[in-house]
C-alpha cells in the first residue's frame, strides 16, 4: 500500500513538466559525454555543479542523476564501435561488442546494449523503490576485509576474461597491478614509482590507460593490418533477431541481479558487476568458444549489470548519505549546495525529493531507449567513414579527453605512451582487458588488505573468520581451481586457440 502512495508522490514530482525537461537534459548530456572518449560523468557533473545553484533540489538531483546513468548508455557506444571504453564498466562491453561490430553486427550490438540496459534499469528502479532501506544496510556490512575478498574474487575472474594462454593473461594482470601502484601509498604517503614527476604524483588516470591501450593500440594495429579492416555487408541490420533475443534473455536477468547486488556496495561495486556478469555468462554458456569473438551474451549480460549497478549505487547515498563512488560524492555536494544534508533522514523529511528521483530514473531510462534506438543507424554509419578521416578524429578526441582530465599536457604524452603499450600487447597476443582490471582492482585490493590488517592488529585470520569475507575467498579459490584444473585448461586452450 505504502509503496503505491510513495511512487505516486514520486510520479507527481518526476512527472512535472520542468522535471521531465531536466531529466531529458540530463540523459541527453549523459549520452553525449558517454560517447566522447575521455570526458566522463565525473567531469561533466563537476562542471555543471554551479548551474544547479539556481535550480530547485529536485530539478538538480534529477538532472545530475540523468547524466550519470545516461553516461553508462553512451559509454558502451564507443566501446562497441571503435573499441574505446570511456568508463571502467564498458571495458567488458568492448570485448565482444567490438567483435560484433567487426562482423557487421554493430547495429545489433548497440540495440542489444540499449535494450539490456533498459530492462535492467527498470528492474533495478523497482528494487530501489521496494527495498532501498534494507539494501542500504547491506552496504554497511562490507568492511575492509570483505572488500579485499570481493576484489580477490574479481581478480581471479579477470583471468577468465581472456581467451588464449593463461600464462599471458596472468602476465597482463600483473602488469596492470604494477601500473596501478603508481602514486602515493595510502598509509604512509610515500610516493611510489613516480620518478619525481609531478604529473604522476596522484597515479595514472584510468581513462588514459583505457584510451591508450584499447583505442590507440587498436588504431595502430589496424593501420598495420589491411585485411582486418573490412566490414561485411549485413550492416543494415539494426535490431536483434528472434534467436538473438532468446540468447540474451537469461544473461540480461542474471546481469541485472548481479549488478543490483554489487552496485549497492560502496567503493566501485558497480564496476565489478559488469565483468562478474561476463565471467558468469562465459562459464554458463553452451558455446564459451564464441566469447571474445562477438557473443551477444557477452554484451547483453555486462550491459544489464552495469546499468542495474548504476541505479542501485544510489541506494546508500539516498538512504544513508553514504556515497558509493566519486559521482555519488559529487551529487552529495550538489545536495549540500541546496541546503539538504544527505543522511538517513532525507527519505522521511523529503519524500518528494527521494521518490521523485527514483521515479525519474525509470522515466530517464525510457527516454534513453527512445533516444538511443533511432540513433543507432547514425552511429553505425560512423564506422563506415573512411579510416583516414575516422582515425585522426578519434585521436584528436582522445587527446582532448586526456588533456581535460587535469589540464595537463603530460597526460597527453602519457596517452601516447599507453598507445604504444597497447600495440605491443596486441603484437604479443595479450588481451588488454585483464591489464585494465588489474590496474583498477590492484590498488583497491592493496588498500583494503592493509586496512583490514591494520584494524585487526596484523591478524590475517580476520579474512577467514568473518563469514562474508570467508565465503567470497572460497569462491575465489573455487574459481581459481576451475581455471587451473588441467582438464579444463586443456579444453580451454583447444577451444580458444583455433583462431
Amino acid at each position, binding site marked *: 500500500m505504502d509503496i503505491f502512495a510513495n511512487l505516486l508522490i514520486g510520479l507527481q514530482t518526476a512527472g512535472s513538466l520542468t522535471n521531465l525537461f531536466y531529466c531529458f537534459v540530463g540523459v541527453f548530456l549523459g549520452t553525449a559525454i558517454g560517447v566522447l572518449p575521455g570526458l566522463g560523468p565525473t567531469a561533466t557533473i563537476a562542471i555543471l555543479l*554551479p548551474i544547479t545553484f539556481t535550480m530547485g533540489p529536485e530539478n538538480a538531483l534529477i538532472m545530475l542523476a540523468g547524466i550519470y546513468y545516461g553516461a553508462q548508455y553512451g559509454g558502451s557506444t564507443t566501446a562497441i564501435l571503435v573499441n574505446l571504453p570511456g568508463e571502467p564498466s564498458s571495458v567488458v562491453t568492448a570485448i565482444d561488442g567490438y567483435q560484433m561490430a567487426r562482423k557487421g553486427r554493430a547495429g545489433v550490438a548497440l540495440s542489444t546494449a540499449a535494450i539490456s540496459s533498459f530492462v535492467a534499469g527498470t528492474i533495478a528502479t523497482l528494487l530501489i523503490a521496494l527495498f532501498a532501506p534494507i539494501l542500504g544496510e547491506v552496504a554497511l556490512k562490507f568492511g*575492509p576485509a570483505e572488500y579485499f575478498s570481493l576484489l580477490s574474487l574479481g581478480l581471479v575472474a579477470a583471468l577468465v576474461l581472456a581467451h588464449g594462454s593463461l600464462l599471458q593473461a596472468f602476465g597482463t594482470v600483473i602488469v596492470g597491478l604494477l601500473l596501478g601502484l603508481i602514486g602515493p601509498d595510502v598509509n604512509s604517503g*610515500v610516493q611510489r614509482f613516480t620518478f619525481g614527476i609531478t604529473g604522476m604524483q596522484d597515479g595514472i588516470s584510468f581513462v588514459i590507460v583505457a584510451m591508450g591501450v584499447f583505442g590507440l593500440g587498436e588504431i595502430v594495429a589496424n593501420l598495420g593490418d589491411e585485411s582486418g579492416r573490412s566490414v561485411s555487408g549485413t550492416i543494415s541490420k539494426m535490431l536483434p533477431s528472434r534467436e538473438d533475443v532468446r540468447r540474451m534473455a537469461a544473461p540480461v536477468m542474471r546481469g541485472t541481479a548481479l549488478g543490483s547486488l554489487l552496485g549497492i556496495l560502496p567503493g566501485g561495486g558497480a564496476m565489478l558487476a559488469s565483468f562478474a556478469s561476463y565471467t558468469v555468462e562465459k562459464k554458463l554458456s553452451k558455446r564459451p568458444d564464441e566469447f571474445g569473438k562477438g557473443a551477444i551474451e557477452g554484451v547483453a549480460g555486462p550491459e544489464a549489470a552495469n546499468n542495474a549497478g548504476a541505479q542501485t549505487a544510489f541506494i546508500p547515498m539516498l538512504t544513508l548519505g553514504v556515497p558509493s563512488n566519486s559521482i555519488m560524492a559529487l551529487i552529495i555536494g550538489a545536495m*549540500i*549546495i541546496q541546503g539538504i*544534508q544527505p543522511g538517513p*533522514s532525507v527519505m522521511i523529511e523529503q519524500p518528494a525529493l527521494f521518490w521523485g528521483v527514483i521515479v525519474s530514473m525509470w522515466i530517464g531510462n525510457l527516454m534513453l531507449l527512445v533516444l538511443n534506438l533511432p540513433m543507432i543507424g547514425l552511429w553505425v554509419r560512423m564506422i563506415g567513414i573512411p579510416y583516414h578521416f575516422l582515425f585522426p578524429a578519434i585521436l584528436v578526441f582522445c587527446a582532448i579527453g586526456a588533456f581535460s582530465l587535469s589540464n595537463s599536457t603530460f597526460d597527453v604524452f602519457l596517452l601516447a605512451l599507453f598507445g604504444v603499450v597497447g600495440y605491443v600487447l596486441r603484437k604479443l597476443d595479450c588481451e588488454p582487458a585483464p591489464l585494465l582490471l588489474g590496474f583498477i582492482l590492484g590498488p583497491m585490493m592493496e588498500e583494503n588488505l592493509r586496512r583490514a590488517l591494520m*584494524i585487526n592488529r596484523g591478524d590475517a585470520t580476520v579474512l577467514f573468520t568473518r563469514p562474508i569475507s570467508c565465503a567470497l575467498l572460497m569462491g575465489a579459490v573455487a574459481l581459481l581451481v576451475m581455471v587451473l584444473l588441467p582438464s579444463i585448461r586443456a579444453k580451454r586452450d583447444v577451444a580458444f586457440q583455433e583462431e
Partner: protein
Amino acid sequence: MFRLHSALGTALAVLMLSQPAMAAEWPTGTVTIIVPYTPGNITDIAARIVAQKLSESTGQSFIVENKPGASTQIGTAEVARAEPDGRTLLITGAGFATNPALFAELPYDTDKDLVPVGLVVSNPLVLVTAADKPYPDFAALVDFAKANPGQLTMASGGNGTLSHMAEALTALVTGTELIHVPYKGGSAAATDTLSGHVDSMWDNPSSAMPQIEAGRIRPLAVSSAHRSDAFPDVPTVGELGHGNFEVINWFAMFAPGETDPELLDTIHDQVQAALELPDVQERFAKDGVTAGGPSRSDFTAFVAAETAKWGEIIRANGIHAD
C-alpha cells in the same frame, strides 16, 4: 595631429586622475578563484557560495576553478605563480599550514609566494563513534585506550590531513597509543566509522550531524577551545582536563605574494562583507560552520601560528607525505 594630441592628453589625464583610486579598486575584471580540491568538496562549496555573492555585490564575474592534486600543491603553486593583480586568488585549507612540514620540498615558498587575505569558513571537528560502541563518553574512550594500548582504531581522511593531525594530537594529550587508519578521503572514513569497522574518527560536523541526529553515531568531544553552537551539549577536549587541545578546520583566501597591501585590504573587506550577509551566515551555521573571520593582520598571525604548531606535531610524530 592636434586631435591626436588632445586625445592623448585626455587619456593621460584620465589615467593620472584614476591612478590613486585604482590601487584599491577591486575587482577590475573577471576574478578566478582557484580551489585545489575536487568539486563538491566542502571547500569547493564554500568557494562557490562566496563567488556567487561577490558576483552579485560587485557585478564582475567570479569563476571557481578546481585544480586538485598532490595534496593541494598543484593549485597552490598556480596561484603562487599568478600575476599579483587580485584577479587570481586561492581558497585552500589547513593543508597550507601542514604542507611545509609534510613535504621536504614544495613547488612554492609558503612565506614569500603567497600572502593571507582572510578567513572564509572554519569549523571544529567532532570526535564520533558508532552508537553501538562501548564508549559512552570521551573519558570512557580514553580509559579503554589506556587499558588496551594499541587496540583503539581512529580513522582519518588520509595521511597528513587535518583529521590525521587531530588523531596525533589526541594520542599526545591523552597519553594513549591509538591506531591511525588512513582512508582516501573523509567520506570513506566516515562510512567505516558509521558501520563500526573502525572505532572512532574526528569528522566534520556537516557530515556527522545527520548521522548523530539519526542516532547512528555518538559525539564524544569537539576539537575547538570553546563549545560549538552546533553541539552545545558536547564538551571540548580541553574542559575534560587534557589541556591545550585545539584543532580547527579552516578554509581561507590567499593571494600571490607580491600583491599590494592596499589591494589585499580591499579584497579582505569585500569578501568579509559577502560572508556577513545573513543568508550566508545562516546557510553555514546549519552545518556547524562559521563564516567570516578576523582582521587581515590577526588572520596572518593565525596562519603563522598554525604553521608552527602543526610543524612541531608533524615532526614530533615523524609524519611525512613524500
